[in-house]
């Protein structure tokens, strides 16, 4: 893995006052993204607009495609053309991207896709917040596979995690998702962009050996197999079909097992390295409030109020939602009375919590349909009930 300082051209260092959508664009430029293909959709459009505005001065290119299917297809071409690539969308556009998310997974193409979530299903609540696509991002494309999804809770984290998303996508050759939401996307806060020299960027691992030794794939359940880019003379082939190390189709159950195991295990096997969570007073806690994204900001208030009432409550914020922190929940569930999980959906990630807790503690879903964040008092009430 080759880690270098960011290219200063893409880094607008200093303090800014900006929303999460803009911060994603700045994070992408800082991470070295030089190709963005997108299609407008509320509440994500501002990211595309900022990238389009900044692209010429950075030496990057923005193209507005004819739809979201074309956008993600162009990213696959762009990545194999040698660029770091990204797009941004929301529910309806995300649904359109699903087939080619599978192609990106299958061809092990690095890219970053941000989903600024809004309420669904269908056109739903175009301008209002939600966290309803958390299962879709993991399982939405057909077939078995694995991805990485990060969930920022502030514009600053939109910036930071976009850089991290690019780095992870290079390390594991997998699409990485920024699963944010309308509230964070449109929330203005202070965002500090560090100087380029302080931003760590993972360079693409390009194969440099003799032509006859080149293989676009290595099914070793790790992520680091070198790739190439069109024009370098390696004459690569990639396909969405089940393939061998050369990228040629081999459509047998045996080969499918080899490819699938690799695609899934390169993430699962490195989960410890990938997963980031933020913990607060888990030691000795009776109840733990678990959350991610904007919901964490609301949960903080509920936790504070509960502590004032003398309840021993800890909090666990998922920065990485996928892969899911299974081991953490297994350990935690044998120590606490209950895990309380607010989400702006009908109960999605809480299913993972239930699965991992496996009956060792109570799991309380504080579900809440899309359109607004929780009332912290509702979370507080759930905490109080959970410790009885």
């Amino acid at each position, binding site marked *: 893995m080759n880690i270098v300082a960011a290219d200063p051209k893409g880094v607008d260092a200093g303090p800014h006052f900006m929303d999460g959508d803009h911060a994603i664009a700045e994070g992408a430029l800082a991470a070295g993204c030089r190709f963005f293909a997108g299609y407008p959709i509320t509440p994500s459009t501002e990211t595309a607009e900022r990238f389009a505005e900044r692209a010429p001065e950075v030496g990057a290119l923005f193209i507005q495609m004819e739809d979201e299917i074309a956008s993600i297809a162009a990213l696959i071409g762009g990545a194999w053309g040698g660029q770091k690539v990204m797009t941004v969308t929301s529910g309806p556009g995300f649904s359109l991207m699903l087939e080619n998310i599978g192609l990106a997974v299958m061809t092990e193409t690095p890219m970053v896709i941000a989903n600024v979530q809004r309420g669904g299903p269908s056109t739903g609540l175009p301008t209002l917040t939600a966290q309803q696509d958390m299962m879709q991002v993991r399982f939405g494309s057909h077939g078995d596979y694995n991805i990485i999804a990060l969930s920022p809770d502030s514009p600053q984290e939109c910036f930071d995690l976009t850089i991290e998303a690019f780095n992870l996508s290079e390390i594991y050759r997998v699409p990485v998702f920024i699963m944010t939401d309308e509230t964070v996307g449109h929330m203005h806060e202070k965002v500090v962009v560090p100087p380029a020299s302080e931003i760590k960027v993972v360079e693409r691992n390009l194969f440099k050996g003799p032509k006859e030794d080149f293989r676009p794939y290595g099914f070793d359940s790790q992520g680091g197999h070198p790739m190439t880019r069109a024009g370098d003379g390696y*004459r690569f082939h990639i396909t969405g079909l089940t393939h061998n190390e050369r990228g040629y189709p081999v459509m047998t159950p045996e080969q499918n097992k080899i490819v699938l195991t690799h695609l899934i295990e390169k993430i699962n096997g490195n989960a410890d390295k990938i997963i980031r969570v933020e913990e607060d007073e888990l030691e000795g806690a009776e109840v733990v409030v678990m959350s991610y994204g904007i919901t964490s900001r609301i949960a903080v208030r509920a936790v504070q109020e509960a502590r004032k009432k003398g309840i021993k409550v800890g909090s666990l914020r998922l920065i990485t939602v996928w892969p899911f922190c299974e081991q953490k929940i297994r350990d935690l569930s044998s120590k606490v009375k209950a895990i309380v999980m607010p989400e702006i959906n009908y109960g999605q990630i809480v299913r993972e919590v239930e699965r991992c807790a496996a009956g060792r503690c109570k799991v309380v879903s504080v579900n809440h349909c899309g359109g607004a964040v929780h009332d912290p008092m509702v979370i507080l009430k759930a905490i109080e009930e959970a410790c009885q």
Partner: protein
Amino acid sequence: MNQKAEVEIKAPLAGVLRSERMPHIWCPGCGIGSVVTCFAEATKRSKLDHDKLAVVSGIGCSGRVAGYVNFDSLHTTHGRAIPVATGLKLANPDLKVVVISGDGDLTGIGGNHFIHAARRNMDIVVICINNFTYGMTGGQVTPTTPTSANASTTPYGNYEYPFSLPFLADAAGATYVARWTSLHSRNITQSIEEAFQKRGFSFIEVITPCTTLYLRRNRLGDGVDTLQYYQNNAVLKHGADTRETAIDFQGKIIIGKFVDREKPTYLDSANRCNTKFIGDDYQLYGKTPPEKEAEEAAKAAAAAGAPPA
């Protein structure tokens, strides 16, 4: 694709086709192989740097072409070859990007991408292998199936109006449009070579027999009968008005080069526009070939000891 055809690659094409992947999957008598041979021949004859040539296909029997050509090649999803090619070209403008795919792929499921790439004058070459059917899935109707022809999903005959692809490409803004049949191998090869030289959206349609499905369902005999039909019914008409290029069931097929015009490509326009608004600070995105050519010519001249032009 009921049988495997044993085909040995003619020695002269060995470098441009992936011999290790033979035999290919196409049926005996299928026209796709002829188009591949023409393409391979054109790459051999052109002065293009083969390391800078990339081929993108969608899904279908025709979509398998990417897997057999010895260039950087991407076999993508159904209908999405053109946007993948767009990304590839924009990520590395030094590439010559060629899309080779089927009629269903490019103009059914991928029709939206087709017209938009032509509208933008994206600098790519698109070769459509038009066999009037969805071959890979068993002979269903496509947007180009002639009215009254039989397909597995129009078992009583097709009652829809088909697209005429040259008209569609022309109307959408393509800068090069030609149509041939798979019988016209020399013309196809020449057209591909011309398209390699063009800057902008170039479109070549090749009417091609699907022996196993389209011909059989319509009781049109075998591949040889089809070539006979092409021989008797292809009408060469360079510069024909593309509004008059529709194909009726077993009717005349107007062939030739219909459109050959110049206009700035997508990247030319992007660079021009940004230079105008941003000024000298703007760094041209990707070096556009004319500038590169001029630069290379100057370098070559300098190397030869000639004074710079």
